[in-house]
C-alpha cells in the first residue's frame, strides 16, 4: 500500500516517500490535504477490485498517525499539556481544536472567494483630490497620571505558567519505591517495561525516578543489554552474587 501513487497540490509521488519526507520534517504536514490521500487510497482500492485487509489495516494506522501528527502540529507548544490528558480527553480536545482550525480555514476560504468577487469593485482609498483640508486635530486636556498608569501596566510581570494540573497528576515517587520493594521481596528480578505496562507516560517517568532512587540506596541493580532493550531490575544482593560468580569463573 505504501507504493500508492499520490498527486496532491503540495506533493506528487508515492505514499512511502510522503511519509519519509514528513518524518524528516522536509515537508510541512499542514500543507498536505490528508483527505485527498484517503480518496486516492479508496480509488486505488476500488480499481483493484479486491479487498486487501492487511493493506487496509496498514493504511489506516499510517493515515491515523499522520492525522495525529498534523493535529498536534496545530498547537506544538501545548503538546506536553495534552500528553497529560487521558486518551478520550485528548481526543476530545484535539477534535475541538481541529474543528476550530477548520472554521478558520473555512472563513479564509470564504474571504478569498469574496475578495475574488470584489475584484471589479474600485473605490478611492485616500482623501478626495479637492476635499476641504481637515483642520489640525486638537486634543482635550489629559491627566498625567494616565501616563504613569500605562507604564505601571507595562511593568506587571505576567503570571508564571500554572503547574497545578501537573502536580495533581504526578503520583508520588514513594508509591513506586514501595511497590518495587514489595515486588523484589517476592521475586529476585523483574522487567521494568512489563511492570509499567499500561501506565501513562508521567507515571512511567515517576516509576523510573523511583528506580534511580532505589539504585542510589544500593537496593537494586539495573541492567540493560542495549539502548532501548528491556530494563532488567534485580535485588542488589543477587546482583552481587552474580558478579561474584563471574569473577570467580
Amino acid at each position, binding site marked *: 500500500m505504501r507504493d500508492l501513487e499520490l498527486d496532491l497540490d503540495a506533493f506528487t509521488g508515492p505514499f512511502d516517500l510522503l511519509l519519509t519526507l514528513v518524518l524528516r520534517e522536509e515537508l510541512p504536514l499542514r500543507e498536505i490535504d490528508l483527505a485527498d490521500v484517503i480518496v486516492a487510497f479508496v480509488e486505488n482500492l476500488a480499481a483493484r477490485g479486491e479487498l486487501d485487509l492487511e493493506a487496509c489495516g496498514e493504511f489506516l494506522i499510517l493515515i491515523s498517525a499522520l492525522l495525529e501528527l498534523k493535529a498536534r502540529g496545530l498547537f506544538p507548544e501545548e503538546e506536553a499539556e495534552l500528553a497529560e490528558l487521558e*486518551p478520550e480527553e485528548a481526543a*476530545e480536545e*484535539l477534535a475541538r481544536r481541529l*474543528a476550530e482550525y477548520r*472554521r478558520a480555514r473555512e*472563513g479564509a476560504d470564504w*474571504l478569498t472567494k469574496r475578495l475574488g468577487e470584489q475584484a471589479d469593485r*474600485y473605490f478611492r482609498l485616500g482623501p478626495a483630490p479637492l476635499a476641504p483640508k481637515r483642520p489640525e486635530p486638537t486634543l482635550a486636556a489629559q491627566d498625567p497620571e494616565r501616563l504613569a498608569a500605562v507604564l505601571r501596566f507595562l511593568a506587571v510581570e505576567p503570571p508564571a505558567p500554572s503547574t497545578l494540573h501537573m502536580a495533581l497528576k504526578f503520583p508520588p515517587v514513594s508509591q513506586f519505591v514501595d511497590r518495587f520493594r514489595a515486588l523484589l521481596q517476592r521475586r529476585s528480578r523483574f522487567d521494568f517495561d512489563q511492570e509499567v505496562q499500561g501506565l501513562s507516560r508521567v507515571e512511567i517517568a515517576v516509576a523510573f525516578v523511583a528506580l534511580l532512587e532505589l539504585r542510589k540506596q544500593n537496593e537494586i541493580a539495573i541492567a540493560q543489554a542495549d539502548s532501548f532493550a528491556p530494563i532488567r531490575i534485580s535485588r542488589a544482593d543477587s546482583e552481587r552474587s552474580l558478579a561474584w560468580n563471574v569473577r570467580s569463573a
Partner: protein
Amino acid sequence: MERPLRLISSNPVDELARTIEALLVVAGAPLSVDTLAEATADDADRVEAALELLSERFREGRSGIVLEHVAGGYAFRASREAADACSRLFERPVERGLSQAAMETLAIIAYLGPCTRPEMTRIRGVNVDGVVSGLVERGLVVESGRENEFGAIRYKTTPLFERVFGLESLAALPRLDDLGADVTEIRTRLETVAEKRPA
C-alpha cells in the same frame, strides 16, 4: 405637517440628496446615516429617504458612479462596468498578494476578534507575528487595547477590511458553525489513533 411643506418648497429631499452627494464625493471613508444627519443638520429619516433617491440615481448600469452600503455607511465607488479602465489606472495595494496565512489570520480576527496573537497562534498552530504586522500595515487590522490578564495586545478588523471585502458590517460574514459532522468524523479518527498508541 411635513408632507405639504415638501410639496411647496422645491422638493427639499432632492436638495438634501444633492448635499449628501457632495459629502460623499469628498469623504475619505463611508459615511453613516448619523454622520450624514449631523453634517446636513437634518434628521436621519430624511437622510435615509435621500439616500434611497441616490441609490436609484447612482446604480450599476445607469451611472459610472455607484452608491453602495458598506462598512456601516454609504460610499461612492466606480461601476463594475468601468473595472477595466480602473485597472489600467489604479493599483489595489490593500488586497494584493494576501497569503493563505494572512487570510486565515484575518478570518480568525474577523470572527473571534478582538483577539491576541497567542490566541491566533493557538488556533493556527504557527506563529502569526509577521502575518499580523502585515495586516496592520495594510490597514485591515488594528490594535484594540490590551487583554487584562497578561497584557497581550488585542487586534480587531478595521472598517477598511469591511470595505475591501464589500461587507455591510461584520454581521454580514457567513456563519461557520455548520461543521458538526466534521467534528464527529475527526473524533472518530483520533480515537482510532488513541487506541493504537502504546501506553
